[in-house]
């Protein structure tokens, strides 16, 4: 701790750890997965689309934020391989976030509190696994949730006034806050909304009101500037609203209770901090802050495909510990009987730290030793499915890869110009895996009950506008999605495509020569948004 109150050890550790994690991800240059292979393909397909000049929400539809595709695209550009897209993309993000994390944690928390929280948040971002799953469940699936959790966790620490304000403090605070909120907004909008809500809440604090207002203004200006270049915001919001109609909301009371019970242990530990901190400060604003941590974390996890891991509780607990520690530091006041609260913070984050670092090391080890079987498409050589033990999810995904191999062969049999392939399933791996031109106007990710259902689905004239080949799976990775899509698009498929041939795993349809507008009479659904801005492929 320096005289200025900025904790240099914390800041240095954050940066060193972020670089170390980035190296562990990026150096092997391969992606190892044991689960959710189809989710991974969503991001790889997106990276390929960007690489081919497409722009999210203008050339294809997605409820995920554009950064979900630009991060792997950046990884793809830098590494030159699909296997490097995700790990290198995440490594870059780690390095990019490290200075903001170092500034926030270093200026707000003493090292005993800041360092455990820093390690926890950096590992949450770095680990290639869905939070709350086993060490063996390696996957970049839903990496956007982890980005959101880490960014929000850092943002929440800004609730504390700096330990000793320094020159330039408000400017740097405002820059960090607006950067974090923008990252969340353009990765997954639910996190961004919570971030903005938090900055509005900070306006209540006279000491921090200035930079919070500045950050809000900066965010608004940045959004306008981005829209000036991107011109996809309206389309993005339409896509989000459609996904929201399919799977928005907190869910049934069963689910609410289920989430609470699954995270009960964390809520109870968090409550220890809240009770002790409020007993000391009796501050209403503190009470609101802890409520914000507990409530927003709950709403976010209810929206996620995630059973456990409300990261806002860890961040809120660290703030509680710092509040207690600052009270203890006041000269003349009796030392609190709870000076050892730091141990409880360790108890809250250390199990996760152990779990996350073991997972990260497992990924690095498997990637470096080239374990597992490559995805059987030429560009996906560096994507490996590993079987860690017998059983588990491996048989299902292994079967999926076999069907992809079969699909690639089926595509080879088509004569004429290179195909633009649409797959009636969760995702299409063929464009990215075979280096084909991606379809324009379609969605990157179809998930029955999550992004589409029988009343909300992309209108066929939009989804099929550009596809020359449609693949219908016989062994889909997501059977509900494949069955549902087959049903809602049956008419289009029949009128505009003809069955070219069948293989063991696929039915291959090719476009009939007629112009589309004479045959497409399906009107989709009244709820379906118009294909805003996507016609013509930008």
């Amino acid at each position, binding site marked *: 701790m320096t005289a200025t109150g900025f904790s240099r050890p914390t800041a240095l550790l954050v940066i060193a750890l972020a670089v170390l994690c980035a190296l562990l991800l990026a150096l092997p240059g391969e992606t190892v997965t044991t689960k959710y292979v189809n989710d991974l393909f969503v991001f790889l397909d997106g990276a390929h689309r960007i690489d081919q000049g497409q722009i999210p929400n203008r050339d294809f539809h997605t409820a995920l934020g554009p950064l979900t595709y630009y991060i792997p695209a950046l990884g793809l550009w830098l590494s030159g391989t699909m296997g490097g897209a995700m790990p290198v993309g995440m490594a870059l993000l780690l390095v990019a976030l490290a200075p903001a994390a170092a500034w926030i944690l270093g200026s707000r928390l003493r090292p005993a509190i800041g360092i455990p929280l820093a390690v926890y948040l950096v590992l949450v971002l770095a680990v290639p696994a869905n939070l709350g799953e086993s060490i063996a469940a390696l996957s970049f699936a839903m990496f956007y949730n982890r980005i959101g959790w880490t960014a929000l966790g850092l943002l929440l620490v800004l609730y504390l006034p700096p330990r000793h304000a320094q020159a330039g403090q408000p400017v740097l605070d405002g820059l960090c806050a607006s950067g974090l909120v923008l990252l969340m907004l353009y990765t997954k909008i639910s996190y961004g909304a919570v971030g903005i809500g938090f900055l509005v809440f900070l306006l209540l604090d006279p000491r921090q009101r200035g930079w919070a207002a500045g950050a809000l203004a900066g965010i608004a200006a940045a959004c306008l500037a981005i829209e000036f270049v991107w011109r996809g915001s309206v389309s993005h919001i339409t896509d989000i609203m459609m996904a929201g109609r399919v799977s928005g909301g907190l869910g049934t009371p069963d689910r609410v209770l289920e989430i609470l019970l699954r995270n009960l242990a964390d809520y109870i530990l968090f409550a220890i901090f809240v009770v002790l901190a409020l007993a000391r400060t009796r501050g209403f604003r503190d009470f609101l802050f802890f409520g914000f941590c507990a409530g927003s974390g709950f709403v976010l996890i209810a929206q996620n495909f995630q059973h456990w891991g409300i990261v806002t509780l860890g961040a809120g607990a660290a703030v509680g510990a710092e509040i207690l520690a600052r009270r203890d530091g006041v000269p003349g006041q009796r030392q609190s009987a709870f000076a050892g609260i730091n141990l409880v913070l360790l*108890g809250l984050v250390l199990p996760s730290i*152990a779990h996350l670092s073991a997972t990260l090391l497992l990924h690095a080890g498997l990637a470096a030793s080239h374990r597992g079987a490559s995805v059987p498409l030429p560009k996906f050589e560096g994507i490996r499915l590993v079987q860690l033990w017998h059983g588990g999810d491996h048989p299902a995904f292994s079967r999926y890869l076999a069907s992809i191999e079969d699909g690639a062969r089926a595509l080879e049999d088509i004569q004429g110009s290179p195909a633009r392939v649409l797959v009636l399933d969760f995702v299409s791996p063929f464009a990215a895996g075979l280096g084909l031109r991606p379809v324009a106007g379609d969605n990157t990710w179809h998930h029955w009950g999550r992004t589409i259902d029988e009343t909300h689905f992309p209108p066929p004239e939009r989804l099929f506008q550009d596809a020359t080949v449609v693949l219908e799976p016989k062994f889909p990775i997501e059977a509900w999605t494949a069955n549902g899509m087959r049903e809602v698009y049956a008419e289009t498929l029949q009128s505009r495509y003809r069955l070219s041939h069948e293989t063991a795993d696929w039915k291959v349809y090719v476009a009939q020569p007629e112009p589309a507008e004479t045959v497409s009479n399906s009107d989709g659904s009244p709820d379906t948004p118009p294909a805003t801005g996507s016609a013509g492929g930008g």
Partner: protein
Amino acid sequence: MTLSAVPSDMTGRLLMAAAAAFALALALPGQTVTTVYVNDLFIFLDGAYRISAGQVPNRDFHTALGPLVFYLPALGLWLSGSLGAAMPLGMALLLGILAPIVAHVLGSRLRPVLALPFGVFLLLVVAVPMNLGESIRSLSFAMFYNRVGWAALALLLVMYCPPLRESRRQAWRDAASAAALTGLMLGLKVTYGAVALAFLAFMLLDRRQRGWAAGAIGLTLAACGLVELVWRASFAHVADLLLTSQVSGARGVVDWAFGLLRHLADYVLFGIVAGLALWRHPSWRDVLFYGFCAGVGLVIMAQNSQPWGIITIHAGAAVAAERLLREEELRDEAWALARGVPLVLLALVLPTAVHCFMALSLHAGLAAARSGEPFPMPGYGEVRLALLWEPGDHAFSSAYLASLRDGAALLQNVDRAGEVSVLDFVNPFSAGLGLPPPRGDNAWLHWGRNVNAEHHLSGGDLLGGVRLLMVPKWGINNLPLAELYADTIRDQFEPHAESASWTVHRRRGSDDRKIAAPRAEARP
């Protein structure tokens, strides 16, 4: 609450009061509510009924579970006269027996700030009608012996801590408590009992505590001898245990690795407290003790059918916290971090305590409200299957009960039903319809757990005392059993009646002749 080490009677009284409250929550409604593992519940109800009909475990029927698993619900049945009260009242009585031991062991060894949360936690682990690690909606008395075993073992392990004050009376009480806990574990599930005896042997290494440990071993051995004089089935019990261990005894590195990963959070918290304690007060014996808590718990856990809950970790952490705080008192300069240690123990036990308390309250509420569908058959009037907010395997349980209803109706049309057995997981009909229980059969048959194609009782042993054999067309694990005993059924039984879900086979020529009942111990 202060951190002071003064042992206070208040701690003991508070723990006794908590035990009484939990016991009342179980016993007062006089009802059993279950949402999962309906078939497991029947093991204990059938067992209680067998005892009340004069049978003796391992003499009149086979079981690898200890005799107390059956005597405890039998006591509940005997006192209340209702099968619905058998389990909750039996568990309430057990809480009454354990409460003074909890009060003595924790009150004499841990300061109140540790003893109270840890004691309440252990009492809730015993009281909650739920398999540890499952959701609060999974209400069930299934595998209650595991929970009792964990709590008893955890209490015993806390005795590693020397008492805060030593006296002659203390040593006697320690010996009696340790012997009672060890005996309880031996009588419920032998794995816990074996670990308890190993721990007592380990305590002989401690010069200060050698006395009560030796006394406890002596008392336990004497009690075992006395029990055997009356019971005369110890060897039959060991034979049943060996048979079961051949089917499902072995656990491998993979089971332990997965168990370790599932309990990573607990191990890390334990590691924090134990690490601090060892740092301030290095001791090889302590290292051995913490290793014993961590390792033995994992081995027991791998044997249990339980997703989470190595309670020896919590015991180890309580001991480590107490040792650390005692060490700090001896030093001039207190270490601020050590003050957080009670909070870490709280962090370790509070989530589970709250979880168990919620499940216990839910059971009490549902039982008091007479919620759910009563089980079929007259004997099970106060036993109910409840449907909670999430169906879980309710459809399965409901279909299982419907098949039992069908089977009971079929049996009531058969004259002079006599000894009935079921060729499936468990036999619910004897207790439900008040029929004489068969002798020589097994309390339950769980394929891959206590029976498989290689290791099983002979058809003559299993079915020798059965007059009517109910063979389900649909059940828990009826198919492999029907295949295994097909020859015996064909040779010794003839089809007698049939319904949608069942076929009743009657012993050939059993119209008038009384069946010669083999005894369980007759098995070679």
